[in-house]
Every structure is written in C-alpha cells, then in structure tokens.
C-alpha cells in the first residue's frame, strides 16, 4: 500500500506517564492496516480455491478470527468478513475476480478504523469499565472478535494470543474520544501510552 503517501492518522500519540514495567495497562496506537470488508459465499469453489492458494480460510463461526502471520480474517456478520492485512497475495481486484456475481461485495475500510492495543495485567479491568461483554476467556477466547460498545463507541474487539490484551478497531471519527477516555479511565491502573 502507498505508505509513501502523506497519511495523517486520527491520533498522534504522546508518550506519557509511568513506564511499561510498573503500568497495569499499556495503550498503544497500532499502525494503519488494510481492511477489506467482504461479502461472499463460502461454497463457491473458485473463491475458496483462491483463498486456499493464498493460504487463507475464513472462519464460519460467529465472532471468531483466523490468523496466519500478519493476516487476519474476522467474522463480522453471517456471510461477511473483514480481511485484515492479507497483503499482496490477494487484492480487492483478484478477490472480486474469483467471486460469483451474487452475492458479492468488497468494501475498503482501511482508513475507517483506528486500531488501538490495550495490553498489561489490568487490560481486562479497563475494558470492563465501558464494555458490557463478558470478558472471561471462557466467554471471549483468544482470537475472539465480537463487535460491541466501549465508552459509547461501537467497535470490534480482538483478543490477542498469550494474554497480550485486545486490539480495538475504532471508527476513525470516534478515535480521539476513546483515546482520551481510555487514558482517564486507566489512570488508576497507572496506564502508560507507548508510541506505535
């Protein structure tokens, strides 16, 4: 993707308070990702083949993601997925080519989401302050990607492996509000903000 182009993200993080070592929560702005919203039939052979060729497969179960290296596929709705950073192997054009006429829809959402990572021993406590989801691993396992509400913002939460916390996919226009909210709500956990 044209990273050479003059991108200006919704947030310019300022390194602040505490150090990651004493902090209960570490808040990080993630680099921009390529996000393609895909509506497609999973039973269409050419499409499935093309996915397989690229080493991808789409999760059929709700609110679950599949990951290979940097690439991730999120289930976002019945018959709808987000393909995140699937890279050069597949592009909007090549995918479109492999899809039948109906149903078929691909939408580029790359600029529409700001990705924030919440890590640290008290990441769950911070998220629980504004999100009604049951965050217990039994209800929200690693790789889970439910969409819900956090501090009044509709977003997608992705639980990372190895207790690394959550990635939040935040609609761009809400990003600064949530960024500030997380820092205020995280103060009691000595939140530290790390530059991306």
């Amino acid at each position, binding site marked *: 993707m044209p990273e050479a182009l003059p991108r200006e993200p919704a947030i310019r993080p300022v390194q602040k308070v505490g150090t990651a070592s004493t902090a209960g929560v570490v808040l990080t702005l993630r680099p921009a990702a390529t996000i393609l919203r895909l509506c497609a039939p999973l039973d269409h052979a050419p499409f499935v083949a093309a996915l397989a060729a690229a080493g991808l497969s789409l999760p059929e179960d*709700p*609110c679950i993601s599949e990951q290979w290296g940097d690439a991730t596929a999120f289930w*976002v*709705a*019945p018959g*709808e997925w987000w393909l995140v950073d699937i890279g050069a192997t597949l592009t909007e054009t090549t995918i479109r080519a492999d899809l039948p006429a109906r149903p078929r829809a691909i939408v580029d959402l790359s600029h529409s989401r700001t990705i924030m990572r919440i890590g640290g021993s008290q990441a769950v406590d911070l998220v629980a302050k504004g999100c*009604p*989801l049951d965050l217990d691993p039994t209800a929200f396992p690693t790789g889970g990607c*439910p*969409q*819900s*509400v956090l501090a009044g913002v*509709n977003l997608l939460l992705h639980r990372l492996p190895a207790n690394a916390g959550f990635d939040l996919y935040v609609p761009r226009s809400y990003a600064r509000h949530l960024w500030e909210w997380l820092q205020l709500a995280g103060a009691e956990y000595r939140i530290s903000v790390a530059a991306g």
Partner: protein
Amino acid sequence: MLLIPCPWCGPRAQIEFTYGGDADVRRPKDAMAATGAAWHDYVYLRDNPRGSHDEIWQHSAGCRRWLRLTRDTLTHAIIDSAPPTKEPPS
C-alpha cells in the same frame, strides 16, 4: 438492562441493540393495489399484548442483523430469539 440473545453472536446487552417493534407487521406486496384499510393497518396498527410479544431488534452495535425476539411485556422475560422469518410479504 435486557440481555438479548442474538441468534448469531449470542447473549448481548441491550445497549448493543435497536428496537423495531411488532415483528408481524407485513408490508403489502403490491402497495399501490392495497386497500386503504390494509395500508392503514400496515402503517399504523401494532400488536400490543400484555404478555408474550413477537418483536424485532437490530444488533446494531454487533453483526447488524435484525432478529425476531419473543419477549413477555409484563415480566420482560425473553422466551425466544431467532433470525427474522423469511415468509414473503402478504
């Protein structure tokens, strides 16, 4: 806050949903041919039972699917949740 079972995403807090009212309102298939009475009923009449009520909700903060919920309007107990019935407009 109600706990609403989304047929796809599972039980979720009410604040993730948008209410849509009576589930059995059916838009006349050929609206222009519909009688004024039939059209009036479609636009303005709703079931309003005290007890079990079939209603639609959208999981607007989640998968954005509309679903059909059966809920007791007196106790707020949730009896059933299912994808919207695909039956064609009458």
